[in-house]
C-alpha cells in the first residue's frame, strides 16, 4: 500500500506526516464507532450496526487468506461457525459452574475455537494452492456442515444451542442485555481485531504472505516454505473468523448449523470481493455494503439473493478490484488535479445507466411475481410507481427501459473511457503514476 512515485520531498518529514495521517484515521474510526449510537439511537439501527461490525471482522479475516496470501476459500464459514459454537458452550459452562469470566472476554474463546480447527485441518488443506485449494475448502466446509447435523450433542441438531448472555458476571455494572451494550462490545472487538489484522500486514510474516500471493515459486528461492506461510495465514484467518462467529453467537444468543453453511461462506466471499481485496479497507467497505443490502433488500424483494449474484458477477467482470479498487483508481487523478476531466462524463452516464438498471429490476420483479406465485399479489412498487405484473404494459416498459437504456448508456460509457484516457495522460505528465 505504499504510494507510487511521489515528487521529491525529505523522507523524514513525509514519514512523519504519513504517521500522523495514519493514526488520525484510526482515531477518527474509534470516535466514529463511539458516537454512532448517539446519532442513530433506534433499536433497528443498533442491531444493524452490530451486524455490520461482526461482518467487518469476518470479512477482514477472510481477506488474510484471499487478498493477502492469494488463497480463495469457499468454506470460510467453518471457522466462524465453530467459533460461535465454542462461545455458546463456554458461556453455558461458565454460567453453570460460576466461573468468573465476564462477557467481554468470551469472544476470545470463539477465536480459540476457530484457531484450533484451522491448526488441525490447515496443514493438510494448504498442501495445494489455487483452484485446488478452493475445491478443498468447499469439501471441508461441506464435511463440517454435514457433520454438525450428526453430532447433535455438540451442535444441537437443526435447532442449535442457545445461551444467555446476561448470565455471566457483570462488568462495570453492565448486564449486556440491552442492544446498546452489545453494540459497544462488538465495536470494541472490531477495533481490536482491525488493529491486530492491520498490524499483521506490517510484520515480516505479513510481507511474505504478499510475496507468496504474487509469486509462490520465487518465494522458495528466497528461503521460505510457501506451505508454512499458507498454513500460518490459515490459522490467523481462522482465529479472527472465530471471534466474529463468537460475537454473532453472543448477539443472537444462539449458535446453529447455519453458521457453518455454504450460504455464510458465500456471503463473506461476496462482501470481501465486492469491497476489494487489494486494500485493507476494501473488505470493510464490502462488509458494510453487503450487510446493509442484505438487511434492506430482504424486506423489499423476495429475490434479493439474485441481485447479490448479479452485482457480484458485475464486479468480477468489470471491476475485479472491487469498490476499493475503483476508488483508489482515482487517487492519482485527485493528486494530479485532473479529476474534473472525468466528472462530467460520469454525470452524463448517470441517467441512461440508471434507466437500464431500473429496467432490469422491473423485469426481474415482474418475472418473480409472474412465475413463482408468491401470493404477494401482482403489484410492484418501483419508486412509488405501481406496476401490475400481469399487465403487458409492464413488460413493454421494462423491455424499453432495458434496450433503450443500454443503447444510450453504451455511448456514455465510451465517453467515460475517453475522459479517463485524457485524465490519466494528464496525471502522467505531471509525474503521478496512473
Amino acid at each position, binding site marked *: 500500500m505504499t504510494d507510487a512515485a511521489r515528487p521529491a520531498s525529505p523522507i523524514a518529514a513525509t514519514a512523519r506526516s504519513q504517521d500522523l495521517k495514519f493514526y488520525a484515521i484510526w482515531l477518527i474510526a474509534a470516535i466514529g464507532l463511539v458516537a454512532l449510537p448517539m446519532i442513530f439511537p433506534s433499536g433497528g439501527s443498533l442491531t444493524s450496526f452490530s451486524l455490520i461490525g461482526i461482518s467487518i471482522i469476518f470479512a477482514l479475516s477472510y481477506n488474510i487468506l484471499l487478498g493477502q496470501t*492469494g488463497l*480463495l476459500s*469457499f468454506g470460510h464459514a467453518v471457522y466462524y461457525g465453530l467459533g460461535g459454537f465454542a462461545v455458546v458452550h463456554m458461556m453455558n459452562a461458565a454460567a453453570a459452574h460460576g466461573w468468573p469470566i465476564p462477557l467481554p472476554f468470551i469472544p476470545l474463546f470463539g477465536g480459540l475455537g476457530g484457531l484450533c480447527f484451522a491448526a488441525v*485441518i490447515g496443514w*493438510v*488443506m494448504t*498442501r*495445494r*494452492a*489455487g*483452484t*485446488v485449494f*478452493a*475445491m*478443498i475448502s*468447499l*469439501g*471441508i466446509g*461441506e*464435511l463440517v456442515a*454435514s*457433520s454438525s447435523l*450428526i*453430532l*447433535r*450433542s*455438540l451442535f444441537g441438531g437443526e435447532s442449535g444451542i442457545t445461551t444467555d448472555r446476561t448470565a455471566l458476571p457483570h462488568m462495570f455494572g453492565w448486564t449486556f442485555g440491552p442492544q446498546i451494550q452489545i453494540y459497544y462490545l462488538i465495536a470494541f472487538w472490531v477495533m481490536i481485531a482491525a488493529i491486530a489484522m492491520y498490524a499483521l500486514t506490517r510484520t515480516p510474516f505479513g510481507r511474505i504472505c504478499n510475496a507468496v500471493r504474487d509469486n509462490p515459486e520465487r518465494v522458495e528461492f528466497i528461503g521460505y516454505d510457501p506451505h508454512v506461510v499458507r498454513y500460518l495465514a490459515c490459522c490467523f484467518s481462522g482465529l479472527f473468523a472465530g471471534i466474529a462467529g463468537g460475537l454473532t453467537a453472543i448477539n443472537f444468543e444462539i449458535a446453529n448449523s447455519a453458521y457453518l453453511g*455454504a450460504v455464510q461462506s*458465500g456471503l463473506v*466471499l461476496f462482501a470481501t*470481493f465486492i469491497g476489494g481485496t487489494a486494500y485493507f479497507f476494501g473488505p470493510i467497505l464490502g462488509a458494510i455494503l453487503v450487510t446493509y443490502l442484505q438487511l434492506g433488500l430482504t424486506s423489499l424483494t423476495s*429475490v434479493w*439473493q*439474485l441481485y*447479490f*449474484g*448479479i452485482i*457480484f*458477477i458485475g464486479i*468480477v*467482470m468489470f471491476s*475485479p478490484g472491487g469498490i476499493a479498487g475503483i476508488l483508489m483508481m482515482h487517487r492519482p487523478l485527485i493528486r494530479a488535479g485532473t479529476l474534473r476531466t472525468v466528472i462530467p462524463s460520469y454525470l452524463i452516464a448517470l441517467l441512461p445507466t440508471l434507466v437500464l438498471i431500473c429496467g432490469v429490476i422491473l423485469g*426481474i420483479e415482474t*418475472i*418473480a411475481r409472474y*412465475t*413463482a*406465485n408468491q401470493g404477494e399479489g401482482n403489484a410492484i412498487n418501483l419508486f412509488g410507481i405501481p406496476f401490475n405484473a400481469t399487465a403487458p404494459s409492464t413488460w413493454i416498459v421494462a423491455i424499453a427501459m432495458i434496450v433503450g437504456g443500454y443503447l444510450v448508456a453504451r455511448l456514455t460509457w465510451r465517453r467515460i473511457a475517453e475522459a479517463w484516457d485524457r485524465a490519466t495522460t494528464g496525471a502522467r505528465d505531471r509525474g503521478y503514476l496512473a
Partner: protein
Amino acid sequence: MLELIVISTLNGVLFGMLLFLLSSGLTVIFSMMGVLNFAHASFYMLGAFFGYQLTKWIGFWPALILAPLLVGAIGMAVERYGLRNTHKHGHVAELLLTFGLAFAIEEIVSMIWGRSPVDYRVPELLDFPAFTIFSTNYPAFKIFMLAVSVLIFVVLLIVLKRTRVGLIVQAALTHPNMVAHLGHNVGRVFMLVFGVGCALAGVAGVIAGPALVTQSDMAGLLGPILFVVIVFGGLGSLPGAFIASLVIGLIQTFAVALNGSLASAFGPLDPSMGSSVLTDIWNVTIAQIAPILPYVLLVLILIVRPMGLMGTRET
C-alpha cells in the same frame, strides 16, 4: 443380503456413470481452458428443469434432444460473453465468475419454478420394471439411464481418440498453450468445448431428473461431490475422473443402503451416559453419514496423495 449387494451395485454404477458424465465435461473444460466451471452442476440442474418443462410442452423424447442443446447454447454464450472477458483477470476471477453464475442460476431457477420439487415423471414408454432381482423390481428407466450414459461415454471415447477435434482436445488436456500456438482458432474451440461440456451436463440432468428429485437445490447438493470427484481422481485426468466417479458412486450408494451402526452391532450404550459426542457416534447409522463420506475421502486423499489418484497437472 445378496439382493442388497446386487441392487446397490447397479445403483452405484448408475450414480457413478452420472457423476462421470458431469465430471468428464468439467475435466475437459478445466484441462483446456484452465477454468474450473463452478457452475457445472448448475447446467446439470438447468438440463433437468428444461427437460421437465419441455416434457410438459412437447413430450420427453423431443425434450431429450432439445434441452441439452439449449443448455449447450447457454454455455457457449457464457463462454463468449463472460469467460472470455474475464480471462485477462486471471484464473481466480474466472472461477469467481462461474461461482457467481452458479449462485444466480440457482436463484433464477427458484424464481421461475419455486423451491419445492417439481413433478418430473418417467416417460410412459419406460415406466415398467425391466427385471426382477430376488424380490425387487428394477425400473427400466434406470437401465435406460445406464444405456445413455454408456453410449455417451463410448461416443466421447471415439471422438477423443479418432477425430481431429478429439486430437486437439487431447493435446490441450496437457499442453493448452501449445495448442494455441499451433494456430487453431482457439476462441472457437473453447466456445465449442465449453458448450459441449455444458450440454453433457444438461443431458445428465434430463435423464437423471425423473429418477432423482428435481429441485432448485440439486446443484448445491451435487456440486461439492462433483469437485471431490475431480480432486480425488486428479485434476486434468479423464481416467482418474472415471475411477473416482465409480468409487464415490458405489461408496455412497452402498452407505445409504446400509442401516448398520455401532449401536446395532454392539448393542446400545449405557443410557446413563447421557448425550455426548460418543453417544452420537455410537448411534449414527452408516446411512446417516453417507452424505459426508465423499468429503472424508477428500481429506484422506489429500493426506496420502495430494495430487489425486492419477493427477498429472498442477493448477
